[in-house]
């Protein structure tokens, strides 16, 4: 069948600059560039290009430019190029269209309509360069009250505290499963989390034994497929996370295709090589809040109540009620992943149309837990669309204890958000299980880039807090007085629990 799909991108090569070094030919994993010895020229197959910029960055003479195909269909706001291409692709294949990363639609980002406050005259701002500024964040259930005792003239804490995670910054690396991303990326995340004093999350693909030594800085995930979930795995993690859903694909499971289940992946997921790794949509032992409680306590029993148990859901319409149930079920941490949350592979129709923006979910969940007097019983981590330190500050002021970053972490080590993770051919060596391509991520360099990102964002968070006259992240949490909305309706402002700018 003749394909009617036109190239999305056009490669322009400046043949004056091109030295025929063939770096682009070797770097491209999509077979775009090829050398034609007859004419001594490098040519391209535009139709294969995914606009990942690997060739652009690595071309030593800067000879390559990638442009969006300027040939457009007749302008139509309704029948966009994307809509036409999707129909053509499905007519040719009869399949579900897969994509990677998070929702790319413009209409769900509320962070950009929220502005932060700063101190002027009536209260002093703080200079974080010279004054202490506290970002340390404890994640886990907090007691309803503290009971103190006197012992030998000293005050001692009588209340037994629930297990806590201690992060030096309110930023953690989100669940990225080994299999969806390469081993070197997992290793870099573990090293960076350890060095900076925060946490990485295994995702649902298990944990390679070589990373067990970083266990104190790893949150291990238990998902519906139970891949790699063994007693050793539960023991090694600093916390356990039950994955109910994720923002990129709420309500559906996942399939790691058999060709990606290599020897290493098989060892970590504890399944045979070459078989599909199917994650069912629900956890089949969790059909209710009561069942969730049962699984939470099964995990607590298995680990002797020494680790916080987190439960992750996708932000959906009734998140607030569900979150209340999760807290009452015994979750020490609840994770909300918004509609912009990313993935290694999801049907595009689900990614772009299911779930709700994290800002609205966070505001309603935090408010609901406060109204019910149980906000202290669990920490809230949010994820799905955190792009900058400003997003982090706004999230914490809206009520989060901490944020998970995924896409931002991958961008730090090379990702250009081309949204082709599901192909497994990531030319940056990130979203792949191919051992040859994986080598492109040097774990030392990647870890350094991640630590740099955490450092930079943490410095910026301190600057913003200092400007507000706040010297501890605790005082920012749920402090919605520091937020003002612009361009928002009354209903949006009401749900976000913030005032309009100028009010």
């Amino acid at each position, binding site marked *: 069948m003749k394909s009617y799909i036109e190239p999305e991108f056009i490669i322009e090569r400046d043949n004056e600059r091109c030295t025929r070094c063939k770096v682009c030919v070797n770097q491209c994993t999509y077979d775009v560039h090829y050398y034609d010895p007859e004419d001594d020229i490098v040519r391209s197959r535009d139709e294969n290009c995914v606009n990942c910029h690997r060739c652009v960055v690595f071309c030593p003479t800067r000879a390559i430019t990638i442009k969006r195909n300027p040939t457009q269909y007749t302008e139509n706001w309704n029948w966009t190029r994307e809509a036409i291409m999707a129909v053509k*692709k*499905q007519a*040719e*294949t*009869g*399949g*579900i*269209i*897969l994509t990677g990363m998070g929702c790319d639609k413009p209409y769900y980002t509320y962070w950009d309509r929220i502005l932060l406050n700063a101190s002027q005259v009536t209260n002093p701002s703080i200079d974080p360069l010279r004054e202490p500024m506290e970002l340390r964040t404890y994640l886990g259930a907090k007691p309803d009250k503290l009971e103190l005792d006197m012992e030998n003239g000293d005050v001692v804490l009588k209340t037994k505290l629930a297990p806590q995670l201690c992060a030096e910054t309110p930023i953690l690396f989100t669940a990225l499963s080994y299999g969806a991303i390469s081993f070197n990326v997992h290793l870099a995340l573990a090293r960076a989390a350890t060095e900076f004093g925060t946490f990485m999350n295994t995702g649902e693909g298990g944990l390679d034994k070589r990373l067990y030594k970083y266990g104190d800085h790893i949150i291990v995930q238990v998902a*519906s*497929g*139970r891949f790699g*979930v*063994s*007693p050793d795995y*539960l023991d090694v993690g600093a916390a356990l996370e039950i994955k109910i859903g994720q923002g990129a694909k709420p309500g559906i499971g996942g*399939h790691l*295709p*058999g060709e990606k289940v290599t020897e290493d992946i*098989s060892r970590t997921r*504890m*399944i*045979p090589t*070459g*078989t*599909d790794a*199917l994650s*069912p949509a629900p956890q*089949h*032992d969790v059909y209710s809040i009561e069942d969730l409680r*049962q*699984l939470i*306590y*099964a*995990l607590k*029993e*298995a*680990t*002797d109540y020494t680790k916080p148990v987190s439960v992750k859901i996708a932000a959906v319409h009734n998140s607030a009620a569900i979150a209340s149930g999760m807290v009452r079920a015994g979750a020490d941490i609840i994770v909300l992943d918004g509609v912009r949350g990313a993935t290694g592979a999801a*049907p595009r129709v689900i990614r772009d149309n299911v779930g709700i923006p994290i800002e609205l979910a966070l505001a309603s969940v935090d408010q609901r837990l406060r109204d019910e007097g149980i906000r202290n019983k669990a920490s809230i981590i949010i994820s799905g669309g955190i792009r900058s330190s400003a997003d982090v500050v706004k999230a914490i002021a809206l009520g989060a204890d901490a944020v998970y970053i995924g896409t931002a972490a991958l961008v730090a080590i090379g990702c250009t958000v081309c949204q082709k993770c599901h192909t497994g051919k990531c030319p940056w060596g990130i979203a792949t299980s191919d051992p040859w391509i994986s080598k492109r991520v040097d774990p030392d360099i990647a870890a350094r880039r991640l630590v740099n990102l955490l450092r930079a964002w943490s410095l910026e968070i301190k600057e913003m807090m200092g400007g507000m006259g706040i010297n501890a992240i605790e005082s920012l949490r749920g402090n919605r007085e520091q937020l003002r909305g612009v361009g928002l309706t009354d209903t949006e402002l009401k749900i976000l629990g913030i005032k309009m700018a100028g009010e």
Partner: protein
Amino acid sequence: MDKRLSHKEQKPSNPLGSVVANNGVVTINATDMHYRDLNLLLKSHSNTTKRIDIFNVYGQRYIGTGLKNNVEIHIYGTPGNDFAAFMDGPTIYVHGNAQDGVGNTMNSGKVVVYGRAGDIVGYAMRGGKIFIRDDAGYRVGIHMKEYGDQKPILVVGGTAQDFLGEYMAGGILVVLGLTLNNGESHKAKFVGTGMHGGIIYVRGRVAHIGKEVKIMELEKNDIALLKPIIEEFCGYFNFDANKILTGEFKKLIPFSTRPYGRLYAQ
């Protein structure tokens, strides 16, 4: 131990309140005992003793959950949900019925139930063996796996309900139909739906199978695989293995290890 351990005594009489050690056998009276306390006792004693007997078990959850040592445990009564979940090593005999989630995500060890079991028996189990003498509930053996030397075995002596072996990815699931009347078929629907690995052996007729599954006759190597499993089962429950083996068996295996390979646009 906190004061929850002091509870009223019941048979067998138990002067220490809960625990008696005699000839290397530790006996626990679980009357009114919270599962937390019971599991703490199991964890502390499984290190130092070869056998633990627990009496008066009335639905306490999580018994043996996450337990690791190669201890032998006898439960008299009814263990509650998620019994032997995440277990790695022990052998547990239940002299009574079991409830839901027996051997949930179990890694190794053995469970023998002298009675029936509830839903999702052996969910995602990766290793070890589970023998249920009578019937079991829904979604038995769901997402069983295997890896390397670990090949879980789950035998249900009676019949099981819908979604038996759903998403099954490895291991051996055997359903013997011993509680069925002559000529009666298994009522389970969607047997093996989503199956992409492992084998299900069923004695007796199966009414309804998932579309990912094909039904095969047994071959010589199947008998060789099945015989020791059934003999072990019969050894626990005093059935005649040869008589069971003369029944009509069918083998259910997946068409493909990649059931959803063609679902997506490439």
